[in-house]
């Protein structure tokens, strides 16, 4: 599924940010994902307040040298992956 641009991604129950040896990680049942650069910027905005569109706009500004369409498709792919791992819900 492709996330709805107006939905509000929010970390699922039991999924939260943590630290390990100065490395930010996304903690979830039975696994942990390292977060660096863009992935950290995205996950920090999955707070139920930002819409998918706002996250895309923010990241396009932060990474202004990158092709905006590419930034958008990378974010949608990443959010879908997190959703499939059940780390993310899309609130209306």
């Amino acid at each position, binding site marked *: *599924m492709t996330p709805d641009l107006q939905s509000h991604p929010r970390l*699922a*129950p*039991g*999924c*939260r940010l*943590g*630290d*390990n*040896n100065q490395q930010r*990680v996304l*903690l*979830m*049942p*039975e696994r*942990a994902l390292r977060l660096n650069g863009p992935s950290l910027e995205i996950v920090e905005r999955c707070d139920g307040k930002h819409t998918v569109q706002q996250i895309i706009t923010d990241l396009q500004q932060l990474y202004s040298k990158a092709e905006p369409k590419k930034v958008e498709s990378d974010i949608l792919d990443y959010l879908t992956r997190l*959703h*499939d*791992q*059940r780390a993310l819900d899309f609130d209306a």
Partner: protein
Amino acid sequence: MTSASTNPLALIAELTHRCPLHCVYCSNPLELQNRANELTTETWSLVFKQAAELGVLQADLTGGEPLARTDILELVRGARDAGLYVNLITSGMPLDEARLAKLIDAGLDHLQLSFQGATQKIAAEISGTKSHPQKLLVVEWLKRVRVALTLNFVIHRNNIDQIDEMLALAESSSATRVEFANVQYYGWAFANRERLLPTRAQLDQSIETLKSAQERLRGKIRVEYVIPDYYAKYPKPCMGGWGRKLMLITPTGEALPCHAAQIIPRLHFENVKDRSLREIWDTSAAFQKFRGQDWMQEPCKTCDRREQDFGGCRCQALLLAGDASATDPVCSLAPTRSKVDAILATVNSAAPAERDLQPLTQQDWLYRPNPA
């Protein structure tokens, strides 16, 4: 001497061996410890701090039944305050809705609720208790709180044909993850293995069902499964490799590289009451014994897969080949694979009708007791 090149990522904290259930495949050792010998709240809290400093991310609070500890709220809080992600691996007893709310308030991140089957009948036979109705209540309470939930179904011959019903139960719950863990054959399960191992036909059917469930439930529930390694072509990378990713602390404070390691003769285990987790991880003889590749025999020693499966499971090598440093006998390349094949031949030879007609009586099982 092989030094640790990695930090442990998870700490398995066996808080107690006490448990109201008597499951015939329990992963606890045959020799169970009493309450009087258990580590105190303070020692566990110190262990959690040391674990976080060592780089551990997750604490698996387990047992026995971790809820049998009257200080479980303090233990959850201690692990969370130390900076760990807190998993509680539980049968759901003894628990009520108020205690569940307090656990979450104390910092519980993830509750893993174990099931012995999809129906009371099979669950009662396997656990020797009437616990299934309580588990269904816990599932209802969990719908009203915010915590990650995994339903864990322990799979064997007598419930492997109920996977559709188990999936339905998971779909009706708030679980985001469901785990179908085939019994692994150590300790109590090893003693009961001839009655627990599924047939090849059952296993193939179950894998087909689970693969299609993974597709159907994508984005809703993560469906994960573990097959009985007797049926595998290559061994499992047991614990992600000896002394590489995991550390287990027994109820009395012994630090082990895996659940069953105490069955290996002449291994001395350090106790967290005497030494820090870092010292134990870095320098204890038990953690170094099968770390790296120096201990390996052929065919592991020169095998292309030795960095993938680390020679498999040391305890299984001991149980089946009589030598803890042998290649895991489940490996198709192992010189002792015939021992596994002989067990599978027995399991798969009886005609299905005849096998199913065998009356299931409690006298046929070896149940694990509840220590004082």
